[in-house]
């Protein structure tokens, strides 16, 4: 099953169980979504439950918050994370804070889905990663969706939760294929160990996870070591317990992400590791991120500004050789 089909299935299954669940977004009904995620749902659930909105993100999120207060369970699609900036007042000042400011009297069962990241030549205004900003807002749960199986289970859980969830997808993952295990009960807050290892803990999420996995074997061969690759899954809250077990075992930490280096999400993971696990570290952690530049339209420049399988391999091998591996 494809990543986008898994997301679609999760919404379809929950919508058929609960008529309070409604979808909102730009071009999600008639067109079936810019990335074909909501395909077929209009026909099945009608235009009162699958709603095409105007191009006005602040109003989309504002309406969704109102609906959630009124008892509905809206699932919003923002066309890209870049456009979430237009809705930031609603997201930060209302969505995240209302349950707190009402002392829990208002619950917001609301999911905000948004794809982000560097795709193929979509230009500076459509290629940003905002998980760092979104996960720094108290009151929001933030999931980073790296695989179809996680997408299916995490979205179902997110829709059923009574708290606001930011559900971050990646534009280049919509056609990723994986068999989903519908019978299992997946905990969306738990980090997933993709591959076990003993010498280096590598933490990543979204597309960088796949890029890292594609060169992992070569890195292990070159450095003659074994790497543990972890999909972080939940960016807020973080499954620090799983990370701690892994880092105590390996003594080495690498964080790989696509966003800009300055203020990157991984910086806080590394900060936590150094604060809490200093005496278990056998080398200074390594953080691989995008450059501090807006993403260029030119394909070569675009690739030069983010980690690629090639650069990940080179950087990790350099770091390993200079740090006693």
């Amino acid at each position, binding site marked *: 099953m494809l990543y986008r089909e898994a997301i679609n299935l999760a919404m379809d299954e929950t919508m058929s169980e609960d008529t309070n669940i409604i979808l909102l977004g730009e071009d999600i009904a008639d067109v079936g979504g810019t990335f074909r995620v909501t395909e077929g749902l209009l026909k099945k659930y009608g235009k009162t439950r699958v709603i095409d909105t105007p191009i006005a993100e602040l109003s989309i999120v504002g309406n969704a918050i109102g609906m959630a207060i009124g008892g509905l369970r809206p699932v919003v699609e923002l066309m890209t994370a870049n456009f979430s900036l237009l809705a930031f007042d609603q997201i930060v000042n209302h969505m995240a804070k209302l349950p707190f400011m009402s002392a829990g009297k208002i619950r917001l069962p609301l999911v905000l889905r948004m794809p982000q990241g560097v795709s193929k030549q979509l230009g500076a205004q459509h290629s940003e990663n905002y998980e760092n900003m979104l996960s720094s807002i108290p009151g929001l749960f933030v999931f980073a969706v790296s695989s179809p199986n996680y997408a299916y289970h995490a979205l179902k859980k997110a829709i059923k939760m009574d708290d606001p969830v930011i559900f971050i997808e990646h534009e280049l993952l919509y056609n990723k294929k994986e068999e989903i295990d519908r019978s299992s009960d997946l905990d969306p807050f738990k980090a997933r160990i993709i591959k076990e290892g003993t010498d280096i803990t590598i933490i990543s999420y979204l597309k960088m996870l796949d890029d890292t996995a594609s060169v992992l074997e070569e890195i292990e061969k070159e450095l003659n070591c074994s790497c543990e690759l972890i999909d972080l899954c939940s960016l807020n809250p973080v499954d620090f317990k799983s990370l701690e077990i892994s880092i105590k075992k390996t*003594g080495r930490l690498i964080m790989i992400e696509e966003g800009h280096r300055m203020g990157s999400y991984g910086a806080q993971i590394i900060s936590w590791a150094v604060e809490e696990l*200093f*005496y*278990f*570290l*056998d*080398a200074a952690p390594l953080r691989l991120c995008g450059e501090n530049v807006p993403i260029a339209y030119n394909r070569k420049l675009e690739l030069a500004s983010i980690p690629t399988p090639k650069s990940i391999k080179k950087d990790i091998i350099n770091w390993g050789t*200079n*740090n*006693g*591996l």
Partner: protein
Amino acid sequence: MAYEIFMPQLSDSMEEGKLIKWMVSVNDKVKIGDVIAEVESDKAIMELQCFKNGVVTALYIKEGESAPVGTVIVDISLDIQESTSQIDEAEEKNKIEEEFEQVSSKEEYSLVRAIASPKARILAKSLNMNIQALQDIDKLPVPSHVKDIVLYHKKRFFTPKALSLIEEYSLDVSDFQVQTKQDSYAVLEYIKEKNISIKQKISSFQKALIENLDKSALRAVYHIYDYIDVRYLKKYSDYGMTVWFLKIFAKSMMDFEGFRSSIKGDFICTSVNANISIAMQANRKLYMPVLKDVNHLSLKNIEEKLLEYKKKVEISSLPIEEMQGSNLGLSNLGFTGIHRFDAMINQDDSSIAAIGASEAGRIALTLSLDHRLINGYEAALFMQRVKELCLEEEFFQEEVKNV
């Protein structure tokens, strides 16, 4: 040398472009980055740049005209002199970059502030090791990591023999509270004292064997027991017992198709020929190489094939294909003097024959059978057939003659 500039594709849906304005004319000198023209795509007007130095020799379309994506619209002749200077420039740039890299990598090392990783420091402390002092006399690298501390500790306090014991028993060196050098005797004492067992990783070969045995153990197996007369087996002893048994079983198998069958998914597959696997062991490993079409092989052929397998088994170079496709197994432990035993059915085989030592003119033969393929009556008839063949002197004469 000519350099051609094509109508570029400026958007995914653009098929042709309209030339709005030429920014150069024929005979103009152009250099890298110069704007040549303004082109209108289906979305916007964009500038068309030149990527080489040269002189414009021809403009193929007029302002206001359109051209399909990919057609040549400008010809530029490249000035040779200028292009060589370009190479020089590139070389210069590379050189500067190299120098820069050298400088920055040097700086990286001088920037190291800690002399050992936090984890290495903790370990060194527990081992009573002074990192600073050891680094001063170049016994430890700067910075030191856990690996360096362990390596130094090992070399300092353990003899090479002791180290190889530590490796063999996967011991942790930090378990030894040492002040003096430890030899292999001390390590052995430790092993005995703590009653540590040796750990060896299961090889892929052993893994496959274990999987096969696990599968075999799940089968519906029963046994039948009897004795066979050895008078002719002994009389015609130019060929070994195993060779004769292979021949006798192959001949009997041709009369009982259950013995040539195996279950594969929803099918029972029956071979046309008798394929027999034979148990061989070397270096504590069990192999079951397969002799194919034994019913068509002469005694001589069988003898040669057995010898070939024996050699391959001894150097562990038996390819997987030569261990597949059998219907019946044969295990002969007669040479050890054992009286009677029963064997595990191998892989997809229907049965296995276990042959004991010859005693008072007879040999104990045990058949272990897969009840899904062969019922008790069939098995008894098969056993009968084997016994009869052992008493037919014409059969022995015939086979020897056939060689």
